[in-house]
């Protein structure tokens, strides 16, 4: 008996609607966050992550309403990220029913934000999202942190940054490979493994999942504590239940 590896579907939300082709048989409204969340919940998702992809800061209130509606009906952990910039943003999302808030660009712009937030709300609800891209170097692999949805280079070494965020009080790291994101080639396993070995806090692997085997690889090879995926679940290719069966067959402990 031990801790189960988590499978986390990720939903992109804007204007109060789930976007990017959610394609389930029998959904009345594929854009309704509550309906989509319930479907993943039924499939056995261990957590859900909502990413607010609204570019401007208008419309943030809609995200708060989405969280309120989902939290009233889906009783598994909810993480919300995208555009979280201040203690006040975090408080509003937590009060709306989010269990964790994920901070990305704002953590780089203001490293004290993570420390303040962890001090105020507890490390358990502060996720630091790191978008990392490989740096072409000879010798040991290196990755650089990117912000603004992967568009802006920061010059920060991803592993050093991850350690700093852990020391600042992050409760876990959501680690996305920019090289693999959207490719369906699988996780950057070397990146995931480097983080998992380096950090004492849980690491969620993200970016590149194209098959169910990729999820297992993230755990068995990358040593990830949790795996996050979007498109393989959204387009109805696979269910979370199928993913868990494959993981269980490969000896990974999952929640039935």
């Amino acid at each position, binding site marked *: *008996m*031990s*801790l*189960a*590896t*988590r499978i986390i579907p990720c939903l992109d939300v804007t204007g109060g609607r789930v976007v990017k082709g959610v394609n389930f048989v029998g959904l009345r409204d594929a854009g309704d966050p509550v309906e989509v969340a319930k479907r993943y*919940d039924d499939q056995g998702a*261990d957590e859900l992550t909502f990413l607010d992809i609204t570019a401007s800061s208008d419309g943030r209130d809609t995200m708060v309403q989405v969280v*309120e509606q989902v*939290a*009233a*009906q889906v*009783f*598994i*952990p909810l993480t919300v990220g995208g555009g979280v910039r201040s203690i006040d943003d975090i408080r509003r999302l*937590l*009060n*709306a*029913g*989010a*269990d964790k808030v994920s901070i990305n660009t704002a953590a780089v712009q203001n490293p004290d934000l993570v420390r303040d937030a962890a*001090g*105020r*709300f*507890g*490390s*358990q*609800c502060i996720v630091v999202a790191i978008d990392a891209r490989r740096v072409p170097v000879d010798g040991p692999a290196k990755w650089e942190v990117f912000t603004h949805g992967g568009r802006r280079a920061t010059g920060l070494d991803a592993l050093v940054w991850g350690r700093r965020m852990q020391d600042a009080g992050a*409760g*876990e790291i959501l680690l996305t490979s920019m090289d693999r994101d959207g490719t369906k080639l699988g996780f950057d396993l070397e990146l995931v493994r480097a983080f*998992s*070995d380096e*950090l*004492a*806090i*849980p*690491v969620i692997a993200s970016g590149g999942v194209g098959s169910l085997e990729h999820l297992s690889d993230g755990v068995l090879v990358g*040593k990830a*504590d*949790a795996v996050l995926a979007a498109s393989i679940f959204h387009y109805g290719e696979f269910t979370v239940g199928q993913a868990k069966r494959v993981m269980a067959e490969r000896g990974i402990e999952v*929640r*039935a």
Partner: protein
Amino acid sequence: MRIAVIDYGMGNLRSVAKAVEHVAPGAEVLVTSSAAEVLSAERVVFPGQGAMPDCMRELDARALRPAVLEVARTKPFLGICIGLQMLFDHSDEGDTPGLGVLGGEVRRFGSEGLMEDAGRRLKVPHMGWNQVRQSLAHPLWQGIENLARFYFVHSYYVVPADPGSAAGMTDYPRPFVSAVSTGNIFAVQFHPEKSHTAGLKLLANFVNWNPWSVGDPSLSDRPSEKR
């Protein structure tokens, strides 16, 4: 029925309140920092998030300690996460004295050294779905499978002075007490409000629980002011 969820300003209580409302549609669920409202409720949920020193400080800042001590003796009482830890004598987190309702200590995972399980480094916080071994029969476990999984997120765990008060055990990697029971108190390290079917069932059981009913084996120290 009125159920008070004690609000001392630490974290999100909405999830707890929503889950209780979900399983007890007829009940009035009150998220409150008023001692009078806590004292007048029929059942009390004592949640907690964040760091124990802050939780104790905020509880006292709202002068809620006497009310919590009172209802911990007199009403069906459910502690959750830090709400479990605060019931004990002392926590290593910030070297903080607790409420002393239950004898024992709160310790940090891995303080004995790096934790490994089958060659894999174990992370702190202990975060995710883990199994609970029901170590005694209790009305709150009714209809919940032994070894059912619940959602955990914590870096500290309780070590009760009375091993007999353990109602549930979980391995990470060594066994720790993940639920305690004594008289009218049931308290859990995991988050029932985030634990899907098993968690909702536990909350429903709490809503229907009468610690003072005849023949209830969990009844060990019946208070004089029974309600």
